[in-house]
């Protein structure tokens, strides 16, 4: 069964008088446990697609089914609940809260979800151990290296055990070696069954994924799972 099912997705931006079609006629299905890279030049719509998948943005037309449930018609609060429990985000610039410690940053999604403090502490401790951060629990982000920061961010993204992990250029602010570490970490999570979707314009990272979606001018140009030739739906 597809964890994500997009059908006829349209997203239009109005910039002054001009109309920009960020996404047009998008039909994609992603199965549970898949490892997908969304690639394309800047402005191709890959970030818009990721925002839609993360329920941070709404399509102007089309339907989005997450785990068999139509999520485009949900109220903002219901969408927030879905983001809280079913979606994890990893950002290029980490987006850690600077005044909170690593442990507090990891615990943030659970705090927002209203999970009791005792349970939070226990789960945060386990997560920090799993990600090799147990010596860094009380460090603030500015006391951590780039790779450690991204590990904290990944720990935070996965602490609620989401169905889908969305990563937007997760290695964009890291050097080669730490970037590779982060990719390996994400792939490990994927091997344990988490659906992983990475947006990147780095072909080396993109080709590591089992499936590539190539975006161009708001359209899906190529889907490696469907055909070998660049003949996507138009």
């Amino acid at each position, binding site marked *: 069964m597809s964890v994500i099912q997009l059908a006829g997705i349209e997203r239009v931006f109005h910039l002054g008088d001009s109309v920009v079609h960020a996404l047009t006629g998008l039909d994609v299905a992603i199965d549970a446990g898949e490892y997908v890279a969304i690639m394309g030049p800047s402005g191709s719509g890959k970030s818009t697609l990721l*925002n839609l998948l*993360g329920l*941070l*943005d709404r399509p102007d037309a089309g339907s989005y089914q997450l785990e068999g449930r139509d999520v485009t018609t949900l109220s*903002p*609060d219901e969408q*927030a*609940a*879905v*983001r*809280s*429990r079913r979606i994890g*985000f990893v*950002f290029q*610039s980490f*987006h850690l*809260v*600077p*005044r*909170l410690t690593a442990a507090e940053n990891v615990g*943030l*999604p659970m*705090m*927002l*979800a*209203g999970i*009791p*403090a005792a349970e939070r502490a226990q789960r945060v401790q386990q997560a920090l151990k799993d990600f090799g951060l147990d010596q860094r629990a009380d460090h603030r982000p500015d006391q951590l290296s780039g790779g450690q920061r991204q590990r904290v961010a990944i720990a*935070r993204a996965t602490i*609620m055990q989401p169905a889908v992990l969305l990563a937007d250029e997760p290695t964009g602010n890291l050097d080669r070696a730490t970037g590779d570490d982060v990719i390996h970490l994400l792939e490990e999570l994927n091997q344990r069954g988490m659906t992983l979707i990475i947006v990147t314009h780095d072909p080396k990272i993109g080709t590591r994924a089992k499936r590539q979606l190539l975006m161009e001018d708001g359209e899906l140009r190529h889907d490696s799972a469907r055909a070998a030739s660049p003949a996507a739906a138009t």
Partner: protein
Amino acid sequence: MRNADVLRFARDAAAGYPLRTSLSVLAMAIGVAAVVVLTSLGDGARRYVVEQFSALGSNLVIVLPGRSATGGFSPANALTTTPRDLTVDDAFALTRLPSARRVAPLAAGNSEINANGRLREVVVAGTASTYLDIRSFKMAQGHFLPEADWSRGAPVAVIGSKLQEEIFGNRPAVGELIRLGDRRLRIVGVLKSVGQGLGMNTDEVIFVPVGVAQSLFNTNTLFRVLIEARSRDEIEVVKREVAAMLKARHGGEEDITVITQDAVLATFDKLLRALTAAVAGIAAISLAVAGILVMNVMLVAVTQRTAEIGLLKALGARAATIRNAFMAEAAMLSLVGAITGYGLGLFGAFVLRQMYPVFPAYPPDWAVIAALATALGTGMLFGIMPARRAARLDPVQALMKH
């Protein structure tokens, strides 16, 4: 998000920007402190006056010549009726009223006292033996004016404690002969110090029999007649009876004014309460200013933390959660500011009391409650707008700000 977590999150957020937080706390504190100190001043003035009046004596009814208290000044009145003088005979007639326990005439004027080789200007009060009890004065040495016929008067005098100090120093004054104007009088007593009493410092007054004062000033009118009612309930009876009797004695003219301590007190009390409220109102403006400052601080906070708000939304925070977190932060700034300001205000009032010990500068309860409530209220009110702005931020846009 649990309430305890909301509060903790807001507290950490406020603590994360110490300069901004302390500035808005300071503004709120100054506002609250201003209200506390200014109302302490106003209410202190009220208490001071009330205490002064209470010092006059209890159940006091005062008769003064001329009709002015209720009608105010009217030119027609001034031209057509010359108020008849209040005389010693009038005062003596009032002693026959059953509701009056004591009656004391009072004639007043300025003269020179010459004693022990020193010369001094003094206020002379011509009165009778009853005056001591009506005003609840105490003697330091000797006794007060003797009981005698009011129209005659023995050549004796009683002086206030300050006069004794200035003229005789440490020497005993009782028994000394003094010259007052063209009279020679013997001092029979010295009053205990009572301090300031309604513009007239009793410690600097020389008391002589009313007959002596009238012949000294060559007049037969009285400045006041003081009457002590038998009880508090009989004050109104005394007032009515005095008015009726003097009207009869003055040929049907209502040419005297009877005032009671309660009425005067109530007027001053009302006046000074209004003044205190007005001052509190002025000080409250600074609270509104502080509220606006809190709003600005929160707006800056929303702008500074736009990326964080986007992140919270991405992590599943509902709009209401974000609004609550920012409201809690605004409320905390206001609360801490209000409490700090309350402390500052109490300290200010304490300093005032140390500097002017006679002045009871305590903030009234209502002002404290109103100041704290206004501080919290404005802080919250002005916190709504930034909090709503934060809650409405588009997460995609917010996340791009970094």
